[in-house]
């Protein structure tokens, strides 16, 4: 069950010719796929295209009506490999993943796909996770396009352009027998805008027809000597065909005056920010009128050399706006100019930063510097650029540097992973610090305060593999962590299989929260939900035992901090050879609440006896040391000042968002912290027996309490 439901929004996928579609970028991409007559879609979730996968999952009905096959792939490599359906058959296929992380995983399949080439249009939608808000290292997909001869689209970040790019992409792919990548930046994935829809198209040729009429063409299979021929084909046929298609179909766009002494070349995705930068400089208006000639590359690979030359020929200087590094496009344009003897000065990363987001502020500065050097008269009377530098530098705001706390993302309220790391902290106190190899997933937040655990993270599912080198005789064992998502992505073979095979003496903690939670709660093989369309409930324990793991412990309630601690200690002190695997399972609380809350409310409404749990702190007993917070960090567990002159420090307090997971109580108990925590069980619709027992208990306890109160001499 995914974090967000698009059940309402997918209705917009049925919009027909001429109707206005209003919505988010990812939804528009889905609509564009359907308008293009796609036959099959696959992919692997990850920010910023997780929601694209969720939309597709929620759009089952619409996809079924059109006969489109959708599959959540086991990994990006699996998704890329599925495009092989378009190799021999005129089937349009699209896959999606987060880039560059996913493109790295997929690159083996992509290399082979690109070499053999395709018959049907093959489109790879890349959620380009670059810049502010990114969760991965800052690299570019562009390099993959260059090394494999795949074409790379980077449309202007508005829905109309993105939708057109999807449609163009399929045609470009078919015209050149080459897979096409379409990159959409984080904000473009989530941009809300509008475009004029077209009717959806059923695929002309169906997967079923292909399956029942198999074809093979040796020239498309990557085997020598065909692979040598394929390389020649890439250079002599597909590349020129692509350049020809790009020029003929005008995939790249020109704005502003036809002639001018200077000009700007940019990636399509940079267009809006460049326009805002120009507006700040007084050289454009809010509606896209530019005083400066602009050449917008909606296709960033390959370049159409003639277009570049034509744009630059009569200009004194040209600025290339290319986000990320290195400056592949700028270098390629330099080659075009040099080869053709065009004298225009080439500017780019000399006036713009080498890396980082190209925001409007960054661009207005860079473009300003470019103009200053090459056409200062265009800057006119120089309106002041918007700037907050003076305000930010002023004392009252600078004082906030010390005050405003950092607020990185962290574990949610009631997260079942928190007790795992609380237990790890407790073991650390006893056995000392350990080498901990972390992994991608929510559990990565254990690296941050209050846990401060984990030393490395090498890639999705690679936690155990990255502890491989630490397999020597030593007084301590390495610990590695991976989530259930990473486990099924590749950790079963690269982590557990590898550790079994090499008799690695490491402790592998598999954090099983029933979903691929970090990407939004998609189901995976070991998910506990029943699904008509997928095989779930395949236990991780069976898988690891199946490939030879011997020391396997399952904890089916991670909130049992004491058991968690003891199991971890047993693993760390075990004399058995081979990996010690702990599978710590509890349902992702975010998903659980989404699942359970409506059920609970319904039961209460129907008058059924139901119990709701919440935690609280006795503020008289809490002494304000906050050890509980340092072992928990739950957003719902906070501190507050009391109105008591005898108190200096704030005491712990639990807010109304508490979901009653029990972690704080279990931690207080396991770590012998203090007895302030209590759990309140509220019984809704108590039965007659409940009420009778309550009256009896109340009578006994009440009479004792009254006696005690009467004897007490205190200020009221």
């Amino acid at each position: 069950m995914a974090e967000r439901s698009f059940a309402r929004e997918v209705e917009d996928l049925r919009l027909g010719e001429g109707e206005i579609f209003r919505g988010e970028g990812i939804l528009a991409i889905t609509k564009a796929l359907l308008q293009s007559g796609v036959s099959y879609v696959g992919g692997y979730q990850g920010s910023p295209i997780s929601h694209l996968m969720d939309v597709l999952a929620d759009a089952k009905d619409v996809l079924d009506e059109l006969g489109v096959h959708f599959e959540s792939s086991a990994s990006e490599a699996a998704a890329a490999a599925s495009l092989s359906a378009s190799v021999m058959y005129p089937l349009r296929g699209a896959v999606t993943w987060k880039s560059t992380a996913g493109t790295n995983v997929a690159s083996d399949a992509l290399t082979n796909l690109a070499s053999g080439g395709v018959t049907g249009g093959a489109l790879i939608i890349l959620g380009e996770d670059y810049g502010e808000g990114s969760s991965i290292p800052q690299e570019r997909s562009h390099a993959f396009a260059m090394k494999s001869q795949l074409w790379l689209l980077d449309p202007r970040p508005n829905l109309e352009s993105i939708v057109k790019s999807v449609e163009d992409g399929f045609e470009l792919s078919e015209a050149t027998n080459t897979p096409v990548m379409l990159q959409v930046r984080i904000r473009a994935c989530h941009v809300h805008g509008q475009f004029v829809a077209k009717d959806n198209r059923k695929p002309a040729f169906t997967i079923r027809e292909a399956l029942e009429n198999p074809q093979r063409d040796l020239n498309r299979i990557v085997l020598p000597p065909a692979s040598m021929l394929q390389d020649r084909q890439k250079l002599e046929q597909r590349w020129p065909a692509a350049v020809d298609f790009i020029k003929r179909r005008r995939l790249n766009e020109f704005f502003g005056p036809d002639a001018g002494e200077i000009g700007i070349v940019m990636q399509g995705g940079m267009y809006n920010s460049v326009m805002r930068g120009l507006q700040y400089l007084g050289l454009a208006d809010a509606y896209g009128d530019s005083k400066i000639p602009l050449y917008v590359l909606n296709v960033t690979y390959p370049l159409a050399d003639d277009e570049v030359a034509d744009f630059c020929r009569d200009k004194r200087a040209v600025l290339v706006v290319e986000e990320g590094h290195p400056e592949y496009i700028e270098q390629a344009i330099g080659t075009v100019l040099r080869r053709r003897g065009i004298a225009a000065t080439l500017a780019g990363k000399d006036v713009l930063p080498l890396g980082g987001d190209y925001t409007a502020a960054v661009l207005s500065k860079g473009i300003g510097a470019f103009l200053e050097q090459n056409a200062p008269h265009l800057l006119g009377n120089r309106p002041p650029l918007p700037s907050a530098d003076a305000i930010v530098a002023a004392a009252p705001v600078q004082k906030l540097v010390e005050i405003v706390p950092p607020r990185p993302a962290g574990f949610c309220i009631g997260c079942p992973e928190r007790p795992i790391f609380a237990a790890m902290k407790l073991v650390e106190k006893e056995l000392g610090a350990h080498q901990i190899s972390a992994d991608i997933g929510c559990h990565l937040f254990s690296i941050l305060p209050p846990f401060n655990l984990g030393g490395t993270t090498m890639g999705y599912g690679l936690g155990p593999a990255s502890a491989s080198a630490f397999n020597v005789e030593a007084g301590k064992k390495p610990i590695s962590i991976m989530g259930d998502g990473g486990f099924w992505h590749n950790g079963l073979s690269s982590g557990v299989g590898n550790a079994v095979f090499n008799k690695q003496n490491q402790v592998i903690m598999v954090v099983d929260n029933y979903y691929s939670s970090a990407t939004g709660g998609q189901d995976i093989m070991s998910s506990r939900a029943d699904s008509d369309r997928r095989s779930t409930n395949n236990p991780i324990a069976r898988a690891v035992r199946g490939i030879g793991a011997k020391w396997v412990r399952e904890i089916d309630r991670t909130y049992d901090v004491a058991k968690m601690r003891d199991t971890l200690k047993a693993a760390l002190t075990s004399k058995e050879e081979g990996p010690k695997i702990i599978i710590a399972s509890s349902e992702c609380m975010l998903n659980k609440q989404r699942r359970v809350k409506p059920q609970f409310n319904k039961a209460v409404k129907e008058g059924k006896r139901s119990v709701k749990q919440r935690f609280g702190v006795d503020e008289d007993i809490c002494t304000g040391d906050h050890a509980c917070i340092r072992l928990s960090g739950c957003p719902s567990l906070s501190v507050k000042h009391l109105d008591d002159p005898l108190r200096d420090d704030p005491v712990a307090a639990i807010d109304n968002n508490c979901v009653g997971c029990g972690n704080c109580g279990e931690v207080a108990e396991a770590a012998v912290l203090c007895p302030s925590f209590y759990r309140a069980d509220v019984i809704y619709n108590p039965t007659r027996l409940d009420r009778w027992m309550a009256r009896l208990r109340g009578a006994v306890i009440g009479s004792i309490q009254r006696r005690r109160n009467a004897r007490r001499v205190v200020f009221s």
Partner: protein
Amino acid sequence: MNAVMPLTPVGPATFDRPLSIAILAMGGQGGGVLTDWIVAAAEHAGWIAQSTSVPGVAQRTGATIYYVEMLPPRDGRHPVLSLMPTPGDVDVVAAAEFMEAGRAMLRGFITPDRTTLIASTHRSLAVSEKGKPGDGIASSEPVFEASDFAARHAIQFDMQALAERNGSVISAVMFGALAGSGVLPFPRETFEAAIREGGKGVEPSLRAFGAGFERASRPAETAPAPDAEAPPPVPTSVGVPQLDGLLVRIHGEFPETLRPMLFAGVKRLTDYQDVAYAGEYLDRMRDLLALDRRQGGEAAGHAFTDAAAKYLAVAMAYDDVIRVADLKTRASRFERIDKEIGKRDDQLLYMTEFMHPRMEEVIGTMPKGLGLWFERKPGLVRLLDRAVNRGRRVKTGHVGWFLSLNCVAALRPARRLLLRHAREMQHIEAWLALATRTAEQDYALAVEVLHCRRLVKGYSDTHARGEAKFDHVLAAVPSLLGKPDSAGWLRRLRTAALADEAGEALAGALMTLEHAFEA
């Protein structure tokens, strides 16, 4: 491209600029809903609106920004809108938590020429604030001061509380405040239509929207005054002769400025033990006041006695199992929890306490002699500890558990005979002796010695750690005597001791101190 707009030779064709709104929120606060409402309102008014965000998909608590730009179409042409805010060019910043308003200022989104700040003044504490062993809560005051300086106009109030009062969520109140601010040129109905179109929880949302709208239309709220109000006067009689005896002593033996703290101490100790115990407290306080007077403490507002009044009461009311059992079984606690959890009359509520007794606590609760005997038998203690040392879920609302706790609480009259009491009293004696000795040479330092008692808190390991820090800090006192700014040094050591659990800051501060007087 240029067919519609005739080209003018210099400058842009139009000076229209989009309205921009940045929303700073934490994951899970409904920033997305607010964004959708704003877009819907703008589209309702016939404008072109674009919103973007960088949502962490599942990560709930991190700071995040949503961004909206809007402008009407012109001659059928849509504007080109930016996907991220530019410092110095934001019309409205909506901050769903007060420190996020501070973050917006640090990022340059709030400038005096342009920005209306709509900020909820409530705090949602960051991990770094909550985890400190002392008081790590960041002060809101500087954010108020900075917003006075940086914002063109600031609408600041507790939007979370207003939302809760109206049975809705903060985004609805913020939307109301945005509408009420008048920055967007749309009538109120346009905003309300956006909420209605959203379709979920419409009525509560509209109610909260209205409350926010109304509140934003009122004049600005300034920073709340720091708690300067004088404590309520100490009564002279409560109608109970024994208690009135204590009050008579407070009024008769102590200067007026000290009475509120002494009253708080006496209240705590009668509740903790009995009237006589509070009397012992006043006896000690009387002696300490005499000392204070001899040292000319009147000029310092009897700072020494005031500090002693506070920390002696806390020290005498040390946390032991009797106290815990007593507090957990009180009728007033049962009532308080019912209220806090919001139990309705047709519901039942049971508490489960998470306790973890150890042999140490058992021995502490033994008569002094017996306890000391046990302490000399570590093997036996370890053996018994195996039976005792275990997490226990105590159901206070069940008769059996209640009676057990009640038995422990009933040991209260015998507390003075127990080992733990003897230990605590020793500790207090040593501490007061040090303070007294110090007072004779360095009054200000002696006051700080008293304040160091703040370091002793918690149970079990936490308590041991606190006492170790207390000893560490106070060990510096002899070397500080007669040194310049000796009190300041001790205060700094104490602050460092409260900064982290492991005592790294304290170790650093002690190192600095070692070299401070070298020159």
